[in-house]
Every structure is written in structure tokens, then in C-alpha cells.
């Protein structure tokens, strides 16, 4: 097997694909930014902890972005987007692998101690299970593996959904008190799951997407308030109430998820109407070669 670097920016037919090059640059950017800041200015008082948080968060974000490929394909009718999924998933796995290595570095690579910690601290146990799962998916992400595993490949790779849930749980559990970041990510994940639950014929409908906005925001609010109520001794009713105090508190996680999913619905609407009112171009209905 020959490994060609050009797969990083070319599509299946081997032609340069600007979007893919852009996505490559985007997934590398957080890592480069961190490395540059770390080496030039340092990362402050507790550099390793700062780095652990930074790459953990980006790993989880990329994982959720990789899960957004399927909805994006449906909404924007861009079948080719699926070719980006592997890169996004592998990038997520790489960041999370780095997250673990940084943790080991912070614990001075004391293997016995690290193993004990993973067994003792529930959030680390969950993180470790997630990491192992993601490593298995990364290892089986090649074309050769896809061919070898056939129908089992799809079954195996559906594990990414429960793994994302575990990653989110880990992110909630590690927080000292403030779970705004995990709550936003959990809200976006909820939107992705709600989208998957839509009947196929509604998945490209702007109206359905507008319906998902309040549902996703509500899911976020419930997840956030539920966490404070169940895991912490913080009155969940008041957490819920805080969502409407936009004047004093600004947008809370449910608000942000609302804004983000509304933007998706608006984009879909725009696309819907621009296609409707434009005379069909001859190439618009040409079949698109499916790849990935």
C-alpha cells in the first residue's frame, strides 16, 4: 500500500479539492495555535492542565463536527461532503490521543499511578473507554479495513454515537462547577440526534429544521439544568429560569444552541428558495458521483 500525502487535499478522483484543503487547515489550526502559543509565550501557571483542557475540548468538538457531516450532506445536498468525514474523525482521535498523552505527561508517565487513577476516578474510566473505542475506529478507518469488514464496518462505526455520549459525560464530570461548554456541545449533539430521527423526506426541509431549533434548545436547557440538579446541589429550577434572563446574563448554553441551529435552518431556507427561483441549470441535476 502506497501512502500518498495528496489524499489530504484531493478528492476520490485525485483532483485538488479546495474545500478539503480548507478543512485540513482548519483541523490543524487549533493544534498549531496551541503549539505556537506554548512555545512563544508559554501557557501560564499550569501549562499542562491548560493544554489538556484545550485539546480535550477540540477533540470533542471535532468528533461532533464529524457527526454533522451526514446532516450537512442532507441539508445542503452535497453528497461529496461525506469524503470529509474520515479526516474529521481522525483529527478528533488525534486530538484526544494527544489529550491522553498530555495527561500522562502531567502525571509524569507513572504507569501504575495512571492506571490506578483511571480505575478509581469514574470520569477517567469513562474517558479511557471512550479513548479505546475511538482508537479502534481510527484503526479501522482505512479503505482496506472498510473492504475487509464489509457490512460489519458500518455496524462497528456506528459506535461513534455512544462514544460521543461518553465523551460528553466525561466533559460534564470533569467540570468543577460550570458546565457551559459541555452543555453547548451536548446541545449540538442533541440536535444531530434529533435530525437523525426526522423522517428521511423531511431531512432537507427547512420547516423541519426550524422545528428542531426550539427542540434542540430545550434539550440543552434540560441537560444543563439536569446536571446541576442531579450531580450538584444547585437548584435546577433556577438554572432553567436563567435561560430567559438574557438581558442580565446574556446567552446561556440553550441560547447558543438555539442561535447555531437557527443559523442552520436559515441557511437551508436560503438554499431552498434560491434553488426554487432560479431556472434549473442543465448541470444542476447531473448525477453526482458518490465517494467515501
Amino acid at each position, binding site marked *: 500500500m502506497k501512502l500518498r500525502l495528496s489524499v489530504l487535499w484531493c478528492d476520490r478522483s485525485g483532483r485538488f479539492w479546495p474545500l478539503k484543503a480548507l478543512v485540513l487547515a482548519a483541523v490543524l489550526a487549533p493544534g498549531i495555535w496551541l503549539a505556537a502559543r506554548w512555545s512563544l509565550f508559554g501557557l501560564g501557571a499550569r501549562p499542562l492542565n491548560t493544554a489538556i483542557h484545550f485539546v480535550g475540548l477540540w477533540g470533542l468538538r471535532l468528533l461532533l463536527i464529524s457527526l454533522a457531516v451526514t446532516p450537512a450532506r442532507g441539508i445542503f445536498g452535497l453528497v461529496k461532503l461525506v469524503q470529509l468525514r474520515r479526516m474529521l474523525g481522525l483529527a478528533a482521535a488525534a486530538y484526544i490521543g494527544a489529550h491522553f498523552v498530555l495527561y500522562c505527561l502531567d502525571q509524569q508517565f507513572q504507569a501504575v499511578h495512571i492506571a490506578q487513577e483511571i480505575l478509581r476516578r469514574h470520569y477517567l474510566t469513562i474517558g479511557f473507554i471512550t479513548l479505546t473505542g475511538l482508537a479502534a475506529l481510527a484503526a479501522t478507518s482505512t479503505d482496506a479495513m472498510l473492504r475487509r469488514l464489509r457490512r460489519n464496518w458500518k455496524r462497528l462505526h456506528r459506535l461513534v454515537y455512544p462514544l460521543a455520549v461518553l465523551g460528553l459525560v466525561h466533559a460534564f464530570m*470533569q467540570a468543577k462547577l460550570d458546565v457551559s461548554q459541555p452543555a453547548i456541545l451536548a446541545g449540538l449533539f442533541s440536535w444531530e440526534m434529533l435530525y437523525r430521527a426526522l423522517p428521511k423526506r423531511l431531512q432537507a426541509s427547512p420547516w423541519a429544521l426550524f422545528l428542531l431549533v426550539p427542540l434542540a434548545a430545550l434539550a440543552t436547557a434540560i441537560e444543563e439544568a439536569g446536571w446541576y440538579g442531579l450531580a450538584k446541589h444547585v437548584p435546577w429550577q433556577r438554572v432553567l*429560569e436563567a435561560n430567559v434572563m438574557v438581558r442580565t446574563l446574556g446567552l446561556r448554553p440553550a441560547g447558543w444552541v438555539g442561535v447555531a441551529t437557527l443559523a442552520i435552518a436559515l441557511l437551508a431556507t436560503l438554499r431552498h428558495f434560491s434553488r426554487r427561483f432560479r431556472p434549473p441549470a442543465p448541470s444542476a441535476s447531473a448525477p453526482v458521483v458518490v465517494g467515501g
Partner: protein
Amino acid sequence: MLIRIARGWEIPESKATPEAFVLGRRRTLGIGLGSALATFLPKMGHTQQMVSRSHRYDPGRPITPAQIVTTYNNFYEFGSDKDIWETAQGLPMHPWVIRIEGLVSKPRTIAMEDLLKQVSLEERVYRHRCVEAWAMTVPWTGFPLASLIRLAQPLSSARYVAFQSLVDAKYMPGVAEPFFPWPYIEGLTIEEANNELAFIATGLYGKPLPPQNGGPIRLVVPWKYGFKSAKSLVKITFTDRQPHTFWETVSPQEYGFWANVNPEVSHPRWSQATERLLGSDERVPTQIYNGYGEWVASLYPNKKDKRLFM
């Protein structure tokens, strides 16, 4: 005529010496340096009351650079990240008054300046151990909490002292979140509060205590996890009941009332066996009572009780 009173922060060292010099030399800071640096004083050109460094509590570690101590802070009233120091700069430090009430012979409100006239200031370098398994070594200026208690004249029925931090949504975005139990409350038993280590700080590195570090006035109890040392104090209440503290209220399974440092009792989410020294690559073993057992171990005869350490 302007009568110059000693502010709560004036010490010889950093005033007399460019900070870089102090910090560059920090590994050699120790006994005798205070007096060595005091010889620089006349060059300063204005008179200030000398505050001497107490060497009874030699930290046995280099002092953490001021730049780190003043930019890495847990102060949830300003926000839940560590980099709240810029937000905190908006908090006005003058005028500042403290209310003393509860089981005292005469409840009263006292202004910072008046309080400082009635105590004698000293500098102490303490190890500071955060519950999050990091530590720093900090030169505080201030006075023993015991002298404040003497001024307050508690009744004999007082068994606890509760410390309350400022809540002002105008300057503190964190307190706008209505679901946390503001104000921040911390507490000690009277015996703990009268221990000679318990300290009220009004200065840091020879300068006024900045808001992010709990300015203008805070508690420092070095044998307990950092969250016990309440910041920006506005009220001190003497009571006969154990105060409901902030962290104990929001997460009782993780943070208790006692919170004495102990390497053998883990936090539910991490080991407390070692601590990362801020601003260095070092991780060092944590000591019971943060190494202050000599002074405080006798406060806790039943060392087996795990609750004393969380």
C-alpha cells in the same frame, strides 16, 4: 497635615527592589534577605513604615513569581475561568468597610483604614495549596486573625466564625448567575480562627492586595485547601452554628467544611498525593496540613475522621 498611616501592604522588599531582582533571586530568598534588602530602602526617597517578614514560617520553597500569582485565580464571583484578573480590576477597593456581627459584645462596622490602625502588620510567606492539586508560595502582608477576633470581642457562646465575601453584580459578572448560593461564605471554628497561623491579608508582594487575589482584605488559612481562604471580605459573623459554606452547599460530596490538606485523602476526582508548583515543572509530594502540622495538628485529635480532610 496629612497623617501617613501604614497601609496594609507596606513591606520593605519589593518596594525597595525591582521585582525582577526579587524574583531572579527568589531561590536564595531566605533568612536575612529582608534585612539585606532593607538597606536599599533609603534610596526610595519616601518614608514608609517598615513591615518585617516573619521567619517563623519559612516555606522551604522558592516564592512563586508575582506575575503568576496575580493572573491565575479562582474567584467565581468574577467568572469560572482562571483568567479573571482583568475583569477583577474594575472592582473599587476604596472605601471598604467590614461588618462584624453575631455573637459579639457590640456589632459594628469598621472601615479598612480604622482597622489597620489597630493591628500591627507583618509579612508572612506561606505555602498555598489549592484543592485542585496545585500550589504556590506567596508573601502576604497582614495581621493575625486572632488580633481581629480580639477587637471583635466575641461572646463566650461563639463557636464558629463565618467569613462573607463581597457580592456586587455591577463589578462581578459571576454573581449574576442566580443559581449559585451567593454570597460566598466560609467558616472556621473559634479554635482554628485563633490559631497563630490564621491570617488576614491586606497585601501581596509588598503591594496592596489586588482584587483578583481577594483585595483589599482576605482570609489566609494555609493548612487548609485554598477555597477556605475567603476573599474580599465584607462581613465576619460569630455564631454558635457551623456555617453553610459555598462549596459545601453546591457539592457536598466533594468539598467539606473542614478541608484540611491531606495527601492520603483523595478528592473524588483526583489524588491529593502530589501538587504541581505553579510556574515550574515541579510536582512535589503534598504534606499533611500542608506542612503546618506543627502548629495545627493538635486542633484535630481524631485524625482518623476522613471528613476533616475533604
